[in-house]
């Protein structure tokens, strides 16, 4: 019974949030009076994706999930790393430059490039961590600044050292031996599920183990729950801040790697920007939980991929799903807060010995 009730409470908030997000989206579409009805919209969004779209959803999910974990590492201890975007931009550029130079043969090149991505991402996040620990600068503002600097810096470097062709500029294409394709579940025209997407699985499992099976994870959660209690119990908070910033940035470095080795092969117009902010939203949606974020990432990838057919089949703009996504994030945090307040009330009632309404809720 108790377990049932806990599951019910855990699911209550996300279900409410998704319902609210769907309702708001419907209202927006009806209010703007498009020619295609609201029914068409949901039919398209909720239809079974094409094979090609399915592959796309899986690939995007893996990258969004990596980004979400990167954000969640900080969030779990109350550290707002808004700079995932800048961290994976610099890391992707550094890794792409190294891999393109092909100093190392084949597979070794991939491994070292991945390491470089992790290190550069961690260093970029580390700047914010050090400023926070030594100078008391809020990580929110420093990571925002670092995001801007990263964008300009990479823009400059690629313009200076990249290969210009037509209107675009990019890094050197990696040799065929270092390309890590993937697995085609359908025909080859439908694309491949990138092998390095497995990084997301590894990182997800690693995140779960780190949180729940290590002292570090315990300290992390303790610091996030109550900083004063953490200090009192001897946790070195400054070291925790720096460590989680580095881990967060390191994971951020990996975000674009599946696409890079699986499809893009060079850093240029192919670079997918914006994943850092998507990851933050998904981390919030998934409650910073390893499993919750899987569903969050899947939902975001699904909505974005499905929305592409809107442009072809209706006159509804595909960006409407961004409203859905934003409302879902906002609604889920509000819903969690309401459910929490409701639970507190129930507990108070239970303690006071009042007639319990909780039985009905749990059922």
């Amino acid at each position: 019974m108790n377990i049932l009730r806990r599951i019910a409470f855990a699911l209550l908030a996300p279900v409410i949030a998704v319902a609210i997000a769907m309702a708001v989206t419907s209202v927006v579409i009806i209010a703007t009076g498009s020619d295609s009805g609201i029914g068409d919209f949901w039919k398209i969004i909720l239809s079974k994706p094409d094979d090609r779209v399915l592959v796309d959803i899986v690939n995007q999910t893996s990258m969004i999930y990596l980004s979400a974990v990167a954000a969640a590492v900080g969030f779990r201890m109350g550290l707002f790393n808004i700079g995932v975007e800048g961290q994976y931009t610099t890391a992707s550029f550094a890794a792409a430059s190294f891999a393109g130079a092909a100093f190392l043969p084949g597979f070794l090149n991939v491994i070292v490039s991945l390491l470089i991505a992790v290190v550069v991402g961690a260093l970029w996040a580390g700047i914010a961590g050090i400023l926070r620990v030594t100078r008391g600068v809020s990580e929110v503002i420093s990571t925002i600044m670092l995001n801007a600097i990263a964008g300009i810096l990479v823009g400059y470097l690629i313009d200076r050292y990249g290969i210009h062709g037509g209107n675009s500029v990019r890094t050197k294409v990696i040799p065929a031996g270092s390309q890590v394709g993937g697995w085609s579940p359908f025909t080859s025209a439908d694309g491949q599920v990138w092998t390095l997407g497995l990084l997301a699985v590894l990182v997800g499992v690693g995140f779960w183990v780190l949180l729940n099976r290590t002292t570090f994870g315990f300290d992390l959660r303790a610091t996030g729950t109550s900083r004063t209690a953490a200090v009192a119990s001897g946790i070195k908070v400054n070291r925790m801040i720096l460590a989680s910033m580095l881990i967060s940035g390191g994971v951020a470095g990996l975000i674009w790697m599946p696409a890079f080795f699986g499809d893009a092969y060079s850093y240029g117009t192919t670079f997918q920007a914006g994943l850092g902010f998507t990851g933050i939203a998904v981390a919030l949606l998934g409650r910073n939980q390893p499993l919750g974020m899987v569903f969050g990432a899947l939902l975001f990838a699904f909505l974005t991929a499905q929305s592409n057919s809107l442009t072809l089949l209706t006159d509804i703009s595909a960006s409407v799903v961004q409203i859905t996504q934003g409302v879902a994030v906002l609604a889920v945090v509000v819903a969690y807060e309401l459910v929490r307040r409701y639970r507190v009330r129930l507990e108070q009632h239970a303690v006071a010995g009042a007639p319990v309404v909780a039985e009905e809720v749990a059922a």
Partner: protein
Amino acid sequence: MSTVVPEVASAPPPVRGRAYERLRGRYWLVIVGAIVVVSAVRMITNADDVTSANTIRAAILSACPILLAGMGGLWSERAGVVNIGLEGQMLLGTWGAAYFTYWYGPWVGLLGAAAFGAIGGLLHGIATITFGVDHIVSGVAINIIGLGATQFLAEAYFSDLENGGPRQLTGLDPLPYLTFPHLSDWLITLNGHHWFVISDVAGFLAALTARVSVLTVIIAGIVVLTTWLLWHTSFGLRLRSCGESPAAAESLGVNVYRYKYIAVTVSGALAGLGGAFLALVASSGFVTNQSGGRGYIGLAAMIFGNWQPGGTVGASLMFGYTDALRLRTPSAVHALLLLVAIGLLVYSAVRFWRKHRTSGIVMGVLGVAFLLWYLLTDTVPREFTGMTPYVVTLLVLSLASQRMRMPAADGQVYRKGSAG
């Protein structure tokens, strides 16, 4: 925004009386000194664009939207609500400005922009004040919604318009401009003489007397009004008390929720007006994602300005100036190196004077590095100018954050009745 980690935030109480007057005198000294230094740098480097009327005009154009976002941030953070959603509210403002200007003219456009921004602010208020959601979380969500909503609305309403498209709307009626014809011509001639100090001041004044958008004047009025309202009225005292100690405010009968709601809504409206500036004044129309991070920069400018209107204006102008210089002649960009070097060396000397050895040395070394960079090169990549404000912000925050003082209860969730 919690720039300062709480335990180091114990700043001395605000200085008033004679010391305050002395401080004010020192500000004038700093301003005059800065003008002389800038003028000297211009003479040495022969980069006349450093203080040409065109550069200053471009700088003011870039600074205005940042300043409005900064003022928005000031309102909301003074009442204790961190508003990182300024970016999204600004985007909503760009759409509101375009739509209402197209159908009803630019004045209604301004109202529309403010109204759309205010809706974003209100949403932030509902989430953070009534439902007690973390302020950063709500702000991030609002930025996503703002971006999605403007793209969606643009495609729905602008696609079929003349001069419109799914991502843009141009050919909007402009707001009127103010020009003092003879005065500005005379000032521009004066500016063209390249005399020491006089021409620099003339360049600055010329930019303020020719083709000044009405909205720029309104913005100046908003800054003055904000300062007066927040610091010289009982309304402002109550509002700021909600940001310093909401429990104490409530125990004295202040309706904390109401003041926070007012502050966040005004905050959103100001950010929306910033969006209107982008769509109607700084460029020739609306495009999607027009704010390009200016909401965040405005927030940074406000923090850089130590949660004070004057500081916010200064920081916004700095961001605007480097942004304007980036787009102008390379020689001016190179001259900026010398300016930065001098600034750092002076600051280093001040730090030594106040017996802050470490930061004095750090600044001194950086200053010498910039000086060498200036002496050993002829040009600077444009991108580096674009980077300057962000790097400077980081530097200043890391050196001065202990002396900054944010509202004591900024970013904290307060629930009605906590005062008991």
